[in-house]
């Protein structure tokens, strides 16, 4: 029978490997999907987006239903998810184009992020609100099963568009699609 006995040598090697985790993430970034056209798909029957209250990075509670009457982009992501990391900078650029249109962005980090969230957001100068779904209960309630997943909700809080997998969010097609939800 195999006996798992990590040696000191292995532990040291693992620690070194842990320090290089970001390099490992780069190595597992899927490349084949980078050239996809930029689509968001309609969601049949426009189901209601479940209300939630989650803390932001400063510990302030943010409630989804407080944004009733506005179009909201809800993005589920994690710092260790390669396509999430890839798309977040373009989401910031999209936010800069759409924030004056009263369109709200809520990026929900799935799981505990710790200091890595701060480091990541600082690196890419992210300014839209980031919330923490530590237990991932909200993510599952929104029927998210993989990361990243993004929904656009209408003024009544109904899910009208979805995108599973990374996108270039400042692509003109996506900007127009999001603006069209506002009507």
């Amino acid at each position, binding site marked *: *029978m*195999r*006996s*798992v006995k*990590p040696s000191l040598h*292995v*532990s040291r*090697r*693992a*620690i070194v*490997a*842990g320090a*290089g*985790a970001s*390099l*490992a*993430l780069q*190595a*597992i970034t*899927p*490349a*084949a*999907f980078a050239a*996809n*056209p*930029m*689509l968001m*798909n*309609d969601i049949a029957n426009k189901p209601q987006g479940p209300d939630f209250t989650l803390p932001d990075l400063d510990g302030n509670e943010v409630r989804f239903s407080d944004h009733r009457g506005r179009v909201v982009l809800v993005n589920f992501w*994690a710092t*260790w*998810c*390669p*396509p999430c990391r890839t798309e977040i900078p373009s989401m910031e650029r999209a936010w800069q184009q759409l924030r004056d249109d009263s369109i709200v962005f809520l990026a929900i980090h*799935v*799981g*505990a992020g710790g200091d890595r969230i701060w480091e990541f957001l600082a690196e890419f100068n992210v300014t839209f609100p980031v919330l923490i779904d*530590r*237990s*991932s209960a909200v*993510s599952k309630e929104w029927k998210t*099963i*993989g*990361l990243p997943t993004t929904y656009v909700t209408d003024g009544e809080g109904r899910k009208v568009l*979805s*995108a*599973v*997998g990374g996108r270039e969010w400042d692509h003109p097609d996506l900007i127009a699609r999001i603006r069209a939800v506002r009507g």
Partner: protein
Amino acid sequence: MAALIDSKRNTFFGLAEGRRERVLLRSALALTCIAGSTSAALPQRAEPVRIERDGLKFELAALSQDQVRAFFLARGFAAQQVEQIVETACLHRSAIGSAFTIAEAPEVRVALTEWQVAAAGKEPHSPKVREDWETVWKRPDIPEDAATAFYWALFPTDQTFKPTDYNWGFLTFGLPPGTVFDLRIVWRTDGTAHRTTIEGLQCAQ
């Protein structure tokens, strides 16, 4: 499901060390894209396997043991828990989704429970999916935050993709390091099942 961990024998998923099957490498094909074939032979190498046909877009590559260690240590797993994953999971990274690029195209469904992992001398089995790992994640010695990250890092068990949608995630094949195996994959578009076999994959060692 049977207990995943046999604490008396200190095994994981009931995997015994057993004899390592030595399988000759099949004929090597350059594989940046496999189109229109139903079976493809692969060299054991680091380049990803890529498939794009019948609505499926697929990318698969083995992760080195150090890549696995780096990822799971950074998520909060203890070193010994990480070594158990390294020794038993046969972890590959994947990106799978719809190759369709127009909104009116059919959906693509991928259910990992329909796939088969076939290694010489072993009963074919499905990849180890989120539900298989849940017993492990509920162990009191596994930090909840680490278990949450593991859940989301695994490719979803059953997912339906709309045009251009895709997901990334780890696939765990439940084989010892170095094992050579074939992977029979299935996907469905408009209720039609499509199949192909990727031969000669290998768990990192």
